[in-house]
Each structure stands twice: as structure tokens, then as C-alpha cells.
């Protein structure tokens, strides 16, 4: 169906565009900006007066909990949640049950995702068989089945030789490897940042070197193997500084941060709130501020939701026993906007971190608004307020540190592949 989105403030971080104009869509593509192509008759007219029209959000870490964890959440609910959050492309990590380590699982997941509305789903394959860190997966086959990258998710990779060879092997196919740096020995048993709050509360701690030691290993192996590496979900100032330095040296490394780590710190765990039990742990205010700064500078490339729906039964437990993770698909946009506002950035700069940049790292045709480009769009009211609650969240994961909080930034329409996938009711 042909569609016209009229009078919206069109923002495209890729081209720097920020202008009120109409967007014309046909056959899944943007066919006109400002002026309609000849003989264009829209079947659907959307009035976006006062709203922002931007590329659909691209999320580098969103757990759909399929296969194997459907009792917590599933494709249908989580893809709807993502769409309601303005996300049009997402990468799902391989930490499912079983893990995404066989082509058949990838094909099934892609088939299931295509059979229902919602964002484009890009699976990240397991780097090792069963994520056990012992044997390599069939990366070539998995790539052909649709994996865009390979990762260990949050599973430990203890044997450095396996990591080394996995990176070498991936580099043979020029396949990207996404790694969250964490030394499994230094992190063992820990649930909180090794700082004042953990000292006071007596929470088992994860020291910053758990991140930096592992990151240093990854960066050294990256230099040696020539592997394309993306660093997932940094948490500490020291690690951010290492990435900054590596980039200055010309190493083609990219990295992201989870949106909760842009705002929260160890201080938010001071009342044992299990919703603030996250992986990696929320660190000090200095760490958080360094993350915000690096994000503004572009040292950190992207913000991901790190969406992790968790069942109440395993969340409402004492902090250290609570299942880590927070729901994030519907908070990615408002929390990114909040960061941009607080950092004094333009919408073009702010939205860059959740559109163009992650799309480029993922190597997918998304994250921009351009004539001839895909019609994946998010139409939102930057001043639209809403309250985070079990009722307002579409995700089956109601686990959020922000329950009861007001958010600014409300998605009105999400267009995916030229179809109206979500409309605020």
C-alpha cells in the first residue's frame, strides 16, 4: 500500500537532515521526501504534525526468548513490544535454550519471525557450540542461514586459545565477532560493582579489571587475527578509555552500551532493588558519566536496549539471587532521548546512536531515511509523556528499574517495510 506521512519533522542522522516535510512510501521503500512522485495516490495518510519522523530504531541486543524460554516471553509479544518502542530492526543474542548454534535453529527463528508482523530479526549466532566455550560453531553455515555476527552472549569463554581461534576462523569469512568483555574468574560469584555500595551492603562484587583484563585480551587478539570485533555493553570508565585509545590507534573496533547503564549507577542498587541487578553490573557515577561522555563523543557507537524479559518468580528475590536483566525494548527511545536532552545534543546527534550507527555495525540496510531506501520508520512525539507500568509495557517482561517512572518520548507509529506495523491506540 502507498503511504504518505505528512507534516512531520523528518530527522535522518545519516544525512544530517532535520526538516519538516512529507514522506512518501510505496512498495516498502521511501519514494519521495518533500515532494511526491508523479501519479502518487496514498492509500494511507498519516498526519505527523508535531511529531518526529526518523529511521526505525536498530537495536543490537534484544532477547526474544525463543526458542526455549517461551514461558517467560515469546516472539509475538516481544516483537510487538519492539515495534511499539519504534524498533524496526533487531539483533537477538544467541542465549536461548538451546543456544543459536545450528543453522536449523536460525532458519526456524527467521521463518517464525517472518510469519508475524514486527521488526526485522537478525540473529546473532553462537560463537561456540552450546556457548560452552569449547568447540567452534559452523559459522559459515550459520552465516548462510542468516546470522549477522557471532557471540558468546553472557556465557564465559574461559579458554583463551578457543577465543583466539574463533576470532581467526571468523576472520577467514570476514564475519564479525561481538564480545562482552568479562574475565570469568574475576567476575565469579559477583553481582555488583566493586565500590562503596557493595562494600556497605555486603554484595559479592565484580571488580573493574574483570572488564578491562578481558577487553585487553580481546584487543590484542583482534590486532593479531584481524578479526572484526564489536564490543558489547561496556560498563566502566577504564574500559571506555581503552576503546578510545584503540580507536585513536586506528583499530577498527566498535562498541555499544546498554541504555540502562547510560542513566543508572551503583547508587540505584542501594535499596537491594532486584530490578537493578543487571549484567554487567551498574558501576559508579564516575563510570556512568564517562559512558555518557564517550557516547556524546562517538567513542561508544551505539546504545542497545539489552532487552531481557525476566519472570517475576525469578526476579522478586534477594538481589544476588534475582535473575539479572531488565526489559528495555519500549524504553530504548525515551531513555535515549533523555540522555540526548541532558547532554544538550540535537535530535540528529541523539538518534544517530540508535539508528544509523548500529545499522552500519550490523551491516544491514537500515537506519536511514532516504529516497530509495527501506521504509522503516519511527514516528514519535518527543514531548509525549507516559508512565512505565506492567500495564503500559507490551513486553511480557515487566522487570524494569523504571516501574512507576514518567517517560518523555512516545511512539505513535512504526512503519516496517512500508507497512504500518504499530499505531498507538
Amino acid at each position, binding site marked *: 500500500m502507498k503511504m504518505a506521512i505528512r507534516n512531520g519533522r523528518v530527522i535522518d542522522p545519516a544525512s544530517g537532515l532535520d526538516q519538516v516535510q512529507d514522506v512518501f512510501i510505496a512498495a516498502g521503500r521511501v519514494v519521495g521526501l518533500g515532494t511526491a512522485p508523479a501519479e502518487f495516490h496514498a492509500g494511507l495518510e498519516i498526519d505527523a504534525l508535531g511529531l518526529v519522523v526518523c529511521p526505525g530504531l536498530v537495536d543490537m541486543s534484544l532477547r526474544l526468548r525463543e526458542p526455549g524460554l517461551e514461558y517467560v516471553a515469546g516472539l509475538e509479544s516481544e516483537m510487538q513490544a519492539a515495534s511499539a518502542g519504534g524498533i524496526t530492526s533487531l539483533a537477538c543474542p544467541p542465549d536461548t535454550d538451546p543456544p543459536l548454534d545450528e543453522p536449523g535453529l536460525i532458519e526456524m527463528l527467521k521463518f517464525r519471525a517472518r510469519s508475524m508482523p514486527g521488526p526485522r530479526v537478525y540473529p546473532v549466532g553462537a560463537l561456540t557450540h552450546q556457548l560452552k566455550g569449547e568447540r567452534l560453531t559452523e559459522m559459515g553455515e550459520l552465516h548462510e542461514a542468516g546470522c549477522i555476527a557471532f557471540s558468546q552472549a553472557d556465557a564465559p569463554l574461559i579458554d583463551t586459545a578457543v577465543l583466539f581461534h574463533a576470532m581467526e576462523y571468523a576472520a577467514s569469512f570476514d564475519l564479525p565477532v561481538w564480545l562482552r568483555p568479562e574475565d570469568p574468574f574475576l567476575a565469579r560469584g559477583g553481582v555488583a560493582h566493586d565500590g*562503596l555500595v557493595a*562494600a*556497605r551492603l555486603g554484595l559479592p562484587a565484580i*571488580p573493574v579489571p574483570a572488564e578491562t583484563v578481558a577487553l585487553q585480551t580481546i584487543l590484542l587478539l583482534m590486532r593479531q587475527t584481524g578479526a572484526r570485533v564489536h564490543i558489547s555493553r561496556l560498563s566502566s570508565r577504564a574500559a571506555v578509555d581503552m576503546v578510545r585509545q584503540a580507536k585513536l590507534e586506528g583499530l577498527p573496533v566498535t562498541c555499544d552500551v546498554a541504555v540502562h547503564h547510560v542513566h*543508572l549507577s551503583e547508587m540505584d542498587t542501594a535499596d*537491594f532493588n532486584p530490578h537493578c541487578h543487571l549484567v554487567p553490573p551498574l558501576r559508579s557515577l564516575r563510570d556512568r558519566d564517562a559512558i555518557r561522555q564517550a557516547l556524546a563523543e562517538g567513542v561508544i557507537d551505539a546504545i542497545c536496549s539489552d532487552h531481557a524479559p525476566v519472570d517475576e518468580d525469578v526476579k*522478586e*528475590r*534477594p538481589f544476588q539471587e534475582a535473575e539479572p536483566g531488565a526489559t528495555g525494548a519500549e524504553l530504548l527511545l525515551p531513555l535515549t532521548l533523555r540522555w540526548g536532552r541532558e547532554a544538550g545534543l540535537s535530535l540528529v546527534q541523539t538518534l544517530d546512536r540508535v539508528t544509523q550507527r548500529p545499522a552500519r555495525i550490523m551491516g544491514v540496510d537500515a537506519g536511514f531515511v532516504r529516497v530509495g531506501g527501506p521504509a522503516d520508520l519511527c514516528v514519535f512525539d518527543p514531548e509525549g509523556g507516559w508512565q512505565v507500568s506492567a500495564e503500559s509495557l507490551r513486553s511480557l517482561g515487566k522487570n524494569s528499574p523504571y516501574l512507576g517512572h514518567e517517560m518523555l518520548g512516545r511512539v505513535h507509529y512504526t512503519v516496517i517495510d512500508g507497512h504500518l506495523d504499530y499505531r498507538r491506540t
Partner: protein
Amino acid sequence: MTAKMTSNLQLTADGRLRHLLTLDGLPKRILTEILDTAQSFVSVGERDVKKVPLLRGKAVFNVFFENSTRTRTTFEIAAKRLSADVVNLNVNASSQSKGETLLDTVSNLSAMLADMFVVRHSAAGAAHLIARHVAPHIHVINAGDGRSAHPTQGLLDMFTIRHYKGDFHNLRVAIVGDVLHSRVARSQIHALTTLGCPEVRVIAPRTLLPRDVSGMGVHVFHRLEEGLKDVDVVMMLRLQNERMQGARLPSAGEYYKHWGLTPEKLKYARPDAIVMHPGPMNRGVEIDSAVADGGQSVILPQVTYGIAVRMAVMSLVAGANP
């Protein structure tokens, strides 16, 4: 987001003690009130009929998810002296092993018409979680949660110090041993700093101290001789055998040599210094028998005062003033 103070959960709207979860952030006036109330209960234990009717008709559930005969027994004695009905539950052995969640266990026990839960759990924050979910008339007392807090132990230690030293304002206090893994040490530090003790020291190898421990208002020493110099109170901590496996210590022998309290080491402290230990002791590991049984030891009085302090806490949270 702003951090909510953990103490808010413990107080009623008009500032009285509702639950006792941690001494972190508890106001001085409450600590003093507990100590003063405990003082009035000491004499109850010295009478022929060791009972007062303050909690008559109330059901106190000792819910221990982690074994501890000693602490459970002192809570039981305290509740019985207040004339409460006491139910002891060793949950470790029953529902938890069947997969029941902590909150389900608590809901079930609430349905048995409990008025007060005394809870011990291996996870930090367990008592907070329960307190957040119980019905408004139920009171929760933390009998030890993970490494986090053991507030009644901290209070009985304060009671003991006050008994022997009178007041906190001129005292140097040293806490010796495995602070990192110790809920007792955390409660002691919070209580001492709140009560106005001008110098609290911790003495331990770096492997047994939290990284930001000085942020809790303590002076850090690694050598026992230096740390004990001129202190008025020495509070020893128990050393768990697991610390050798976790590569935090080479051996019990080396620990004893450097951090074990012997009569020679104790000479660095003031001559009238008292020596405390929360029990159970590892003689010959963190403390020499000559010190544990010596003239400066107040380890057994600590146990006796523990009952009066727990009576005070139970009666105060229940709003039953003696």
C-alpha cells in the same frame, strides 16, 4: 534516579522502629532507645521468673534459611521471656529444596498468622525483600542476611561496649579480620559511626577487605600491631575455612601468625582494652585461648547481653514499651 535509603523501610511514618533490617542509616536516637530498653531487660534475666508479658499472644516465627543454632536460640529465649509463642522453622531443609520461592514461603507463613518474622538468609537483602512484601501488621527482624547485616549482633556489641566503657565519644575501636565477608563487621561499623565513635579501625590483609571500605568511615590497617596501638576495644571476627580455597589466604597458620590475637599482640592496645568476638571462635586461628579466656575478654557477657538486646528489639518493633 535517586537511591532510596534502606532505612525508610524500617521506620513507621512517625519515625518509630517497624522492622530491624540493618543499622545502616538507622538514626542515633533509635540505636540509643534500643540500648536503653535492653538495659531495662537485663534485670529480667536475673529474676527467678524470667518473663514479662509484653508480647503475650503474639506469634514469633524464627525462619532460618541458613543454619545457626546459637542465634536462633538467643532469639527464641528472648521471645519466650517476652511471653510470645515461638515457632522455629528450618526452611533450608523443607520448602526451599522443593523450589518454593522465598516470597511464597513467607506468604504461607503469614497465612499461619505470624506477627513477627526473625529471618536468617544466605543472600544479602533477603530481609528487606520480605519486609517489602509482608502485611502491614507483621514485623521483620533480620538475624543475618548474606554478608550484609546482622543488626542485633551489632547492637549487642554496642551494648557490651557501653556497659564496659560508658560512652562512645572517646573510644578507639579496632575490628580485626575478614571484614569483606562479615555481616557482623558491617553492622558494627554502621553502629559505631552512628553512635559517635571517633575512630573505627579495620585490620586485615587486603584480600579480606572490601575495596571501598574507607568510604564507610573507617581507618584501614593491614598490620595488627599498628592497628591495635592504643585502642580501647578489640572486636575479632571469625575466619571461615573457605577463605583458604578462594586464594584469599595461604593458610590458617600464616593468618594466625599475622592477624591472630595473642597476649603479646594485645599488649599494643590500651591496658584496659576489652576483647570481643561474635562467636563461634576458632581458637588458634583468629584468637589465642589465653586471650579468649583472659581477663580482658568480654565474650561471654556479649552472649548474655544478646538476649536483653533481642528482647528490646522485639518489643520495640511490636510497639510494646516496657
